[in-house]
């Protein structure tokens, strides 16, 4: 292992320890778990969809909501605690480069979100599997074809969610490298998540002819600068679909996420190099 990688991993390790010891992480983890578990109680309000789909959507929603909040707030907090408390002064006076510091922060925060995604998707998988057993027995008695749950689809979904949250963390770190205050980083990071969720609107609009060059350029830029976070929402098809999702489609989504993550971290490193601590 190269010295540079070792230093990056040490920063990640301490960042991870700092994050998991925060009450904020535990609080959101408990809230997310409570939402997944409560989906069984609310299944009567399934709006005409299948029960498993309702449970899955409820769980996916909780994972996305609390995962996004954790990615934005926790990442900004982990970055600004080093700057505001001046621990960054001590660390960056050592033979540690700015890019190693920023990447260490990224991997530490991403590892925390990994724990979050594994715990919640594991819990959701158990809840869905248990309900599936009951529903299959009932469907067989009624002579119907039951909707089944795919454990491998759940694993793919969990990996894609982790990737999506990684993209959010990379965006927040880039904003934090530029921002002067924690609040600014949180507000802009949250807006980026919302814009990423709505990016498909710009993608649709860019395909339609427009009379204004300026508007056209704005749409084109929006579709390039912001990742389409909606493309990660293929949980239904992965977990409940009878045919699943083609591996090429999953790989395309994953590669797009990795590319955005790398691009944002590259920009964040360039910005952070010029920052005066």
């Amino acid at each position: 292992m190269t010295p540079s990688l070792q230093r990056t991993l040490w920063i990640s390790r301490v960042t991870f320890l700092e994050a998991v010891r925060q009450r904020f992480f535990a609080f959101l983890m408990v809230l997310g778990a409570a939402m997944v578990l409560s989906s069984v109680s609310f299944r009567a309000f399934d709006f005409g969809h299948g029960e498993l789909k309702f449970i899955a959507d409820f769980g996916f929603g909780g994972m996305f909501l609390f995962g996004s909040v954790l990615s934005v707030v926790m990442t900004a907090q982990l970055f600004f605690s080093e700057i505001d408390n001046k621990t960054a002064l001590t660390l960056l006076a050592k033979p540690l480069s700015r890019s190693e510091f920023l990447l260490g922060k990224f991997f530490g925060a991403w590892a925390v979100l990994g724990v979050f995604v594994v715990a919640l998707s594991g819990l959701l998988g158990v809840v869905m599997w248990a309900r599936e057993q009951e529903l299959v027995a009932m469907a067989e008695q009624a002579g119907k074809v039951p909707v089944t749950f795919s454990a491998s689809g759940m694993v793919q979904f969990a990996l894609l969610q982790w990737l999506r949250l990684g993209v959010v963390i990379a965006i927040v770190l880039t904003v934090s490298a530029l921002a002067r205050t924690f609040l600014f980083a949180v507000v802009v990071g949250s807006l980026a998540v919302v814009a990423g969720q709505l990016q498909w609107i710009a993608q649709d609009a860019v395909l339609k002819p427009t009379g204004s060059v300026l508007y056209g350029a704005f749409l084109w830029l929006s579709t390039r600068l912001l990742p389409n976070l909606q493309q990660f929402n293929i949980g239904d098809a992965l977990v409940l679909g009878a045919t699943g999702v083609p591996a090429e489609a999953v790989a395309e989504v994953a590669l797009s996420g990795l590319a955005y993550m790398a691009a944002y971290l590259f920009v964040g490193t360039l910005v952070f190099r010029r920052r005066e601590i």
Partner: protein
Amino acid sequence: MSSAISVRRLTKDFQIGIRGLKLRAVDDLSLEIPRGQVYGLLGPNGCGKSTTLKVVLGLVSATAGEISILGHPSATAEARSRTGFLPEAPYFHKFLSGRELVTYCARLSGVRPSELAAAVEDALGLAAMTDAADRPIGTYSKGMLQRIGFAQAVVHDPELVILDEPTAGVDPVGSAAIGRMIHAMRDKGKTVVLCSHLLGQVEQVCDRVAIMDRGKLVLEGRVEDVLARRDRHVMTIEAMTPAAREAAEAALAAHGARVTSVTHPRRSLEDLFRELVTGSRDA
């Protein structure tokens, strides 16, 4: 052999507000800090001491000027790997123990795994923190924070140690302990740069001093040279009677000398305090 730190014509401006007004923190500063000495950088608050150190360490960029550390351009990993730094009012991750912090800093400073345990123990021993090393940093007193900060700064056996206000907020006993650590570093042949406005301590531990004011260097030299008044002499006399004093003054007057003041010698309040108080609870 090159200087420990060489600063040539350093200027640092900060932009203030959206109109970009300039605040000149350091103004055309040149310094040569020789190796193997304890060097004091003095000045009032806001005179540019800490900014100078931050530029030297590459934490902020210089507007103009050249800086090298141990012959290497500052802000390079090579220069920083041979430098230890204790920032002003250090704050460390409260959830780590002292030993974990020093280990973490040792690994970031490039200490090899095979040498890690010995390096950490040596640094903790030098800072007199071995007994408290396994306690969380959140439970440390101010003096202990400074000492664990000192340990993390020297754990990789650097040639140059930069201490920014190491005794700020520390009681005289803790302050004396830090003074001893500085002497120990000098005895090992290290260069120590001490940034402080506690003049008494600087006078006791430093070989050379530089005084800054409003971003400029106003005085630089060996401590005894800058403090000595060659046209005045002090004699300490025991059992002097009025008659003896008159006779002495007359004898001096016969040679053209004149007694300008006669006072009783005083010990410093710090000496008295250290004499009465043998140690604090965390010492």
